[in-house]
């Protein structure tokens, strides 16, 4: 059974049709590259899956059950996690504190809930080890490289029992060496049976990790095929409209 199924998702903002009957499915442990030019509707689609917007028409099914998210928190409750482009980290806090932000572990001392820093450090260290990242829980995010920041943001999605991780341009603003680090992280998530939707402009990144490519143009889905049977040239053609559909 697909972990995520979109059935005829449409969205309009007033007279503007941002999405028109978009349908596709994602299997557990599958990495899907979601591609398209600026304004093609990728971000709108991601925001609908993440619970920021409600679709004007169409259905979202998670593990076969129909969902109607009214907030990102509701979506997170169903295992949908988002790694934002700007990563949503607090530079002034430690890696461990960021991983647990808003979900701090507490224990009671004399009836007062006390933040259990030690337990958070240990759990964060486990998550970083699991992701094979060299990020240290005690370090401040302020002093970290782009790749380590990604690891912190991704570790956060591993805290909850996430089933689907949406990643918005994770490799847009980091160095070549760090890109490799992030792509490794994506493969670790896949190895844990998590479905990853990777929104990216960078063709080589998508083709190196994605099992399947989904291409959007002007709010419509124009291609949905295994990346092995496509090519960067074809996808470029699909994005620009040089190729009508595939």
């Amino acid at each position: 059974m697909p972990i995520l199924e979109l059935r005829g998702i449409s969205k309009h903002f007033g007279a503007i049709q941002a999405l028109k009957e978009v349908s596709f499915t994602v299997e557990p442990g599958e990495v899907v590259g979601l591609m398209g030019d600026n304004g093609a509707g990728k971000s709108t689609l991601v925001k609908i899956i993440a619970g920021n917007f409600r679709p004007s028409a169409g259905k979202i099914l998670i593990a076969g059950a129909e969902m109607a998210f009214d907030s990102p928190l509701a979506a997170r409750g169903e295992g949908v996690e988002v790694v934002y482009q700007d990563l949503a980290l607090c530079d002034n806090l430690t890696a461990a504190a960021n991983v647990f932000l808003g979900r701090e572990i507490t224990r009671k001392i004399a009836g007062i809930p006390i933040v259990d820093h030690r337990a958070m450090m240990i759990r964060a260290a486990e998550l970083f080890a699991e992701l094979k990242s060299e990020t240290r829980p005690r370090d401040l995010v302020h002093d970290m490289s782009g790749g380590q920041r990604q690891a912190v943001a991704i570790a956060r999605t591993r805290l909850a029992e996430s089933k689907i991780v949406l990643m918005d341009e994770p490799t847009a603003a980091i160095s070549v060496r760090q890109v490799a680090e992030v792509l490794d992280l994506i493969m670790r998530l896949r190895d844990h049976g998590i479905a990853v939707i990777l929104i990216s402009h960078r063709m080589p990144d998508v083709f190196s990790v994605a099992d399947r490519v989904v291409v959007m143009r002007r709010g419509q889905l124009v291609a949905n095929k295994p990346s092995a049977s496509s090519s960067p040239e074809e996808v470029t053609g699909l994005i620009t409209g040089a190729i009508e559909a595939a």
Partner: protein
Amino acid sequence: MATPSIEDVIGQSQHHGWLARVTSRQTFWIFLAAIIACVLLSLVTDTFATERNLFNVTRNFAFVGIIALGMTTVIASGGIDLSVGSSVVLSAIVVGTTMAAGFPIYVAVPLAIGAALCVGLLNGVLIAYAQMPPFVVTLGTLAVARSLAMVLSGNKMIYEFGPDHDLLLGLGGGSMVGIANPVYFLMILAVLTGLSYRWTRWGQHVFAVGGNETAAGMTGIRVARVKVSVYMFSAFTAGVTGVLEVGWLGGVTTNLGQSMELTVIAAAVIGGATLAGGSGTALGAVVGAALIEVIRNSLILLGISTFWQGTFVGSFIIIAVAIERMRSLRQNA
């Protein structure tokens, strides 16, 4: 690659050794400056290191220090509270008028602190929910709260506090084992504030909001509630100070706490709270307040006109911000 054990990973940190960690803190240097100033004053004057003078110095800095705890919290969350001086006088006038009207102290004090909390609530709601800039909102309540204090008292001095007169004077003006009562309030509040910063979810969230408000919101932290709470805490510290100051002075006029916000902000900033938000410590607030009071005291003891006080306090704010600026430039280089 050998996999390090979890304990190894946790033990690793970018700051090696306690000495490096301690000396990288602004609080340490300010503390050192305060100590050096004290030593110099003890050598140069024979009046500084007297029991009487030290008693006065500690009591005076307690008033600024208590509010600096609230101010540090507001600044750590990325805000600013200019209304604290007016909350002090409002609290003081409320406690004064209700006790002068014959009410007992246990009714008057909660009313006074409640009045200050109302100012904090108004600040918080306008800033957090109406999303107005903290500077403008608290500048407005600065004017409103002092004006209400004038209306309430008819702008007259109050110095008769009804049946519990002596209790009120003892609370703010008395001492235990040679230490002024306000100093105990400062110590208790400083310990509680410090513990809350480090060990409560509220403390974590205050610093998260100050560090990256959008990020904090996206992780599910209720940013608006955190903001309201910090302005209420700041108003609470001002309310407590108002009550204590009436007791110490033995009377209250509507001049009380005038331009106190400047000294308090200076104490917080000197103590390591950066105005951009996301940093600050309770110990820093106390040490910052102490340094300002020692400097102020030294001007008096050295026979320098107190007119120079503003110059010193103002320059301190600018120097502390300049140091912070230089440090962040160096880190980003």
